[in-house]
């Protein structure tokens, strides 16, 4: 099993490396070729370990949500998909940042309760996640719904080396992205309201 989960873990990081190339100022076909080349190179062993394994040593495996966001962004750019709706992106960022605030401080010892324990198959957590996924679907936030569902499905299938559902839903880098995006949004709104007030 460890061979399979090593492959999925490294593949997630190769996706991240390839997605980074999609920002390169190249034509569509060249950009796709560069991304594919980088993804392959990230998995080719150099001096015993592939480059993705060095990244994996520092970051661990990326969550399913991270991989889906990266894939959505990379494929969207390449295939000309319309970007995720602003309200859906905001909902996703709020969900991720909220979960991170609830999880990380307590899991690192801020109190006696450890929410990470719920990720080892608590029916309450699976029930709550199912409800959130259905609620997102009902609100036509299909990408949010898909992120939660695929994370849950991947956990159920043992996709990564972790047996904890939290690790499929979010990771620290994703949490930093969500918190950063929300902070930026808040700062922009604050600045525009200050600018509006000064104009008055």
């Amino acid at each position, binding site marked *: 099993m460890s061979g399979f989960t090593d492959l999925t873990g490294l593949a997630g990081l190769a996706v991240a490396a390839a997605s980074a190339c999609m920002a390169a100022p190249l034509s569509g076909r060249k950009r796709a070729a560069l991304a594919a080349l980088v993804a392959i190179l990230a998995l080719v062993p150099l001096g015993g370990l592939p480059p993705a*394994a060095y990244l994996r040593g*520092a970051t*661990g495996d990326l969550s399913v949500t991270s991989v889906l966001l990266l894939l959505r962004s990379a494929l969207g750019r390449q295939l000309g998909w319309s970007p995720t709706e602003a309200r859906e992106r905001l909902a996703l960022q709020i969900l991720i940042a909220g979960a991170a605030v609830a999880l990380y401080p307590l899991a690192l010892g801020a109190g006696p309760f450890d929410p990470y324990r719920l990720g*080892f198959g608590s029916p309450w957590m699976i029930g709550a996640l*199912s409800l959130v996924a259905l609620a997102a679907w009902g609100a036509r936030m299909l990408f949010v719904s898909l992120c*939660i569902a695929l994370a849950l499905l991947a956990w159920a299938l043992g996709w990564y080396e972790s047996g*904890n559902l939290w690790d499929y839903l979010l990771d620290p880098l994703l949490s930093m992205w969500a918190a950063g995006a929300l902070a930026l949004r808040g700062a922009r709104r604050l600045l525009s309201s200050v600018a509006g007030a000064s104009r008055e």
Partner: protein
Amino acid sequence: MAASSRGGTLKGALVLGIVLAACGAGAFRASGRPAPAPFQVSRIQEPRNEAPRMQTGFISTQQGVFAHAASLVELRDGSVRAFWYSGSREGARDVEIRSAVLDPRAGKWGAERAVATREATERSLKRFVAKLGNPVAARGADGRLWLFYVTVSVGGWAGSSITAISSDDEGESWGAARRLVTSPFFNLSTLAKGTPFLYADGSLGLPVYHEFIGKFGELLRLDKAGAVLDKTRLSHGRYSLQPVVLVKSGEEALALMRYSGSEPPHRVIVASTRDAGAHWTPPAKSPLSNPNAALSGVVLGDGVMLVALNDVEHDRDVLSLATSRDGGAHWSAVGDVENQRAASVAPLDESRYAGIVTALARESGAVAADASAIGESVKLRSCKAGRCGFEFSYPYLIQTGDGDLHLAYTWNRSFIKHVRFNRAWLEEQLAKSSDERLH
């Protein structure tokens, strides 16, 4: 327009299908989660009418290295396999997990060899590994031998995670490494030191600890394949480490932890459970002293608890044994396995220190030539700017099927020492200790 609407409906239906499938798959996996299990109580009845017996010796033989954090496990033939880590210094990239086997009849340790290296671990884990640390050995319910050891990819020990390897041939060869994912924040920081134990359903209890920002004890429950089934907190806060779990009955256990706080009194931290680990009492200070150092313990055949520890509030130059006959409420000192407090009172220069260490090595069973080399080797590691100190730390205590007790510990950060004794010797020491108190 109609085509776009149809496409949207199809997409919505597809996502709903995935959501429902995921909910079903998640519920199915959760339903397969093993139910809580009581602790397995395994008591070894010590032989009666034996003469008191105690012998000492060195397990590790490499000179001029840093050697630390021993662990022991009984093999099927009654011999004992030891593990420890050693290298040019703590945290160096050349640190390896090494092992040797005690021939119980000859009373001698065999040649040591590496069982895990940094390079082999990172190749097997498919991720960069910067250094190795504490090994802990366990016997699974199916007879397989497990070795859990600390690996760090980035940063210091607070950045640790645990790697597991297993052996089906009593430690002669080892399978692929598996990383235990036990923390959501870059899998920081879980370390092992305490002796593992079994649950009644065959799952394995691995006492671990967290030391990134908070410092607290935890308990991992692993299935027969080494996958993490559950994790519970043994304590919380910023001052308890390296738990040792002493199982009293199927439902009751005591967890003893190293105290890493600065507030006196410096005492071993204790927590207990009455529901097989579902809940633990809040961490409290026990009567046992602790200089921010690891301890180890076993429960003997009649339920008496025996611990090996630095039963002093400062420094690690005294290593002692203590017992409790009432489940950990009260403790009695058995005696010191090592005590160099008197020698440490005045500053020790290198030549006097090397002389004392050489004499101690000889007393510990080393032949004269080896004892001198040991003295020189320890001097190199334990003396700084001409001032030297003693350290006897990181004890690891097990009881083998013949009733004998085996204690391994770090000897001056340079060697791993072994002390083997029987219950009769322990009772004799207790009686002496009691007589001394009476007089």
